[in-house]
């Protein structure tokens, strides 16, 4: 057994010299005790202190550059096993220098993970160390208390020198302290938290900044904790604000949405106009291409009642207005028969472009698919947000699917209200074009009567809702 004493926890040079000597002497990895400082030697009573002389015929060797870099970092790790692990790797690399490339190897993986932890620790010290100013006879000095996880303080000194070379500063840690006077760096004994100042005049402003730059509408505490774990918080003045900011966030977001939702009432018409203009340029699905124009909804922005159809037809497409073709005329008649005032209703379609198949000179209506319905929901949802009708009527399956997000069978759904995700009440009935397609006159009359019946019930319900 060989016993190697290193001068300090971050004594990379000492390790390098010893490791090289041990390798030349042919000492296997499990025959070395590594120790920092003068620990109790009797623990290793059987060990021979110092590095044995080179074995006869041992040849000098070199190791890959990548190993040197890896060792310089991983040796700063707090794990007492680091010296032995790196020595074991060194022995392996002496015979197979290219083995360092095998990052899937368990030993290399472990050492790389150690190096990674050290790099992260160094980086967090760059980031989370906070200076506080104190007045001294010679002027201002900036003092920080910091508790690193690994033996990184000396290795990190250069960063602070490069950045703050014209200031006078001190960094106190449980391992040692560093003092910079503007020209040279001095080392001192370990410090204690109480040695550092406990306040700084700039901290109030910094906390104001921290609280204000945070967006309460995007609370993501897990992401914050991943990068700024709690163990760092005690030395970061701003971290004291976190619990209150988090607790308050939901309330603040709710408030923002509430005010947002109450304000459109004032200029809902303006909002609807702007939306209509943007929709005129919509390219969210391919239906815009062959169609003449976007046919947007129409009616008062404050309408208590909203009718949603499937899509514009041939005549609507040319006119640019919803429900003006044969189905629209039938719809108007039914509304009249049911005693529902169309001028109080907002009329729109689930899909806002005409989908058709050309058949000679005619354009034959084609059913929109669920992708197109989904794409166009972007518009109907915003129309609903602005108009916020007390009652919505889905005319046909496409409208029902768009509003509820489910596929619906009319025969089963008609006649009873459905609650929508936005809280609105929805009734489902047939689309007037369905009535147009029925060939038998008596069945047609029968279905028309049912449709008028539905509308009458809807009218009564609306009167109930709006008082």
């Amino acid at each position, binding site marked *: 057994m060989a016993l190697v004493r290193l001068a300090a926890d971050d004594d990379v040079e000492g390790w390098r010299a010893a490791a090289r000597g041990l390798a030349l002497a042919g000492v296997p990895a499990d025959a070395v005790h590594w120790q920092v400082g003068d620990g109790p030697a009797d623990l290793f009573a059987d060990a021979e202190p110092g590095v044995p002389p080179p074995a006869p015929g041992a040849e000098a060797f070199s190791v890959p550059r990548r190993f040197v870099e890896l060792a310089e970092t991983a040796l700063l790790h707090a794990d007492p096993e680091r010296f032995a692990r790196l020595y074991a790797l060194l022995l392996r690399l002496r015979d197979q220098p*290219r083995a360092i*490339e*095998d*990052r*899937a190897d*368990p030993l290399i*993986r472990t050492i790389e993970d150690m190096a990674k932890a050290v790099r992260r620790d160094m*980086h967090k010290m*760059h*980031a*989370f160390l*906070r*200076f506080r*100013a104190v007045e001294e006879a010679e002027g201002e000095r*900036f003092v920080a208390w910091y508790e690193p996880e690994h033996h990184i303080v000396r290795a990190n000194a250069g960063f602070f020198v*490069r950045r*703050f*070379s*014209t*200031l006078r500063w001190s960094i106190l840690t449980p391992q040692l302290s560093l003092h910079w006077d503007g020209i040279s760096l001095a080392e001192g004994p370990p410090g204690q938290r109480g040695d550092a100042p406990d306040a700084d005049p*700039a901290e*109030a*402003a910094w906390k104001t*900044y*921290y*609280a*204000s*730059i*945070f*967006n309460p*509408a*995007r609370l*993501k*505490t897990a*992401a*914050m904790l991943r*990068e*700024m774990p709690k163990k760092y918080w005690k030395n970061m003045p701003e971290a004291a604000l976190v619990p209150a*900011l988090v607790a308050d966030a939901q309330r603040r*977001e709710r*408030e*923002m949405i509430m*005010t*947002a*939702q109450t*304000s459109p009432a004032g200029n*809902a018409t303006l*909002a609807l106009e*702007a939306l209509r203009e*943007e929709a005129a*340029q*919509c*390219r*969210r*699905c*391919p239906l815009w291409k062959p169609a003449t124009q976007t046919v947007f909804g129409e009616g008062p922005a404050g309408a208590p009642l909203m009718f949603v159809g499937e899509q514009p037809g041939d005549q609507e497409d040319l006119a640019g207005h919803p429900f003006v073709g044969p189905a629209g005329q039938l719809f108007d008649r039914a509304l009249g028969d049911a005693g529902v005032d169309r001028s109080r209703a907002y009329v729109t379609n689930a899909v806002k472009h005409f989908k058709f198949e050309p058949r000679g000179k005619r354009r034959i209506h084609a059913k929109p698919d*669920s*992708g197109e319905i*989904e794409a166009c929901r972007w*518009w109907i949802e915003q129309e609903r947000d602005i108009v916020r009708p007390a009652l919505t009527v889905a005319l046909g399956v496409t409208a029902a699917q768009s509003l509820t997000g489910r596929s619906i069978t009319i025969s089963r759904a008609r006649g009873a209200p459905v609650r929508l995700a936005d809280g609105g009440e929805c009734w489902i009935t047939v689309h007037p074009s369905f009535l147009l397609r029925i060939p038998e006159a008596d069945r047609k009359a029968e279905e028309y009567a049912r449709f008028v019946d539905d509308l009458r019930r809807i009218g009564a319900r609306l009167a109930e809702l709006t008082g």
Partner: protein
Amino acid sequence: MAQLDLRAKLGILADAAKYDASCASSGTRKRSSEGQAKGIGSTEGMGICHAYAPDGRCISLLKILLTNSCIFDCHYCINRKSSNVRRARFTPAEVVELTLSFYRRNYIEGLFLSSGIIRSSDYTMEQLVEVARSLREDHHFRGYIHLKTIPDADPLLIEAAGRHADRLSINVELPTESGLARLAPEKSAPRIEGAMAGVRHKIEDRQDARRRYRSAPGFAPAGQSTQMIIGADAATDRDIMTKAHGLYDRHALRRVYYSAFSPIPDASAVLPLKRPPLIREHRLYQSDWMLRFYGYSLADISAAADPASGMLPLDMDPKLAWALRFREHFPVDVNRAPREALLRVPGLGVKAVNGILAARRWRRLRLEDIARLTRSVVKLRPFLIAEDWRPVRLGDRLEVAPPPPRQQLELFAA
């Protein structure tokens, strides 16, 4: 306006800046104050996040507006003319003092300064430039400076901005022109892109000059970036990535930031009331990475989106979405496949792929080797072939075969 004290102003003007997502402090030239008689600060290439806010965002720079007064009326913006927020304005000297005071205490990497437009574009830009100039020339500040650039400002002012700043950014604001027309009626897409093209030209010009004369003055060494607001206009994910791809291509941007539009106090009626799910923003960033680092083409990203709606799935990352649409490309043999094919395996990052390529020169890799290089081998093993592993088939569901029973192998060996 009554005189506000500095802290009150800071509260207002940081609050007003918080909707801007770009806060990186990376990618600039190295600078150090060591051996310098005057000044303060350094940059080391890598950005540093000095704190994280509860919204999970990195706080690297002092991100503030010079003023939140504005003569424009962009609906998504809390500072628009018609908004009722409290207004405040810093003097350039106040911003300089605040930056230095924070920097000395190691709170920040530098400054990100933006502003509402007051009086005119030129006047506003002059004020922004003055802050950067004073930091650099009066105080020899060597930390990071990011300036928001106003598209219509005089080219001479842009020139000065680029001389002092590490990074310049011009926000395209919205991915579609119709969205811009609705939500930012005073802004124009061609003008914005024109300004970006101008900045690109200057950056490349100066890089060229510096290659020949080391002493040639630099121009925005950390390049230019932009930001798009997501979910305020009708743009689909496909539209957004098409726009981003075009911007990277035409203006050599370092970064495009995607910022899910979030409810703002005193919102305009013209704004959609619902915010997009934050996960959508995340999916867009992932697609952006696929474009820039994983060798996917714009057509690939488009194909990962739903064909009809143009939206990327929210419940899986776009790389997985692509892999499930193009199953015929999998499984990929980790011991044989070229780099490009490995990069397409969902769950394999650039680092892991490099690790595989280096390790396999040495020996044939087993599943446990891959496990050591990645976070979750369970998720990616249906897409892989390793020395001791072959997925049964990539069915409709993500069915995976259990690892071969080891003990049994040993029994056979005996």
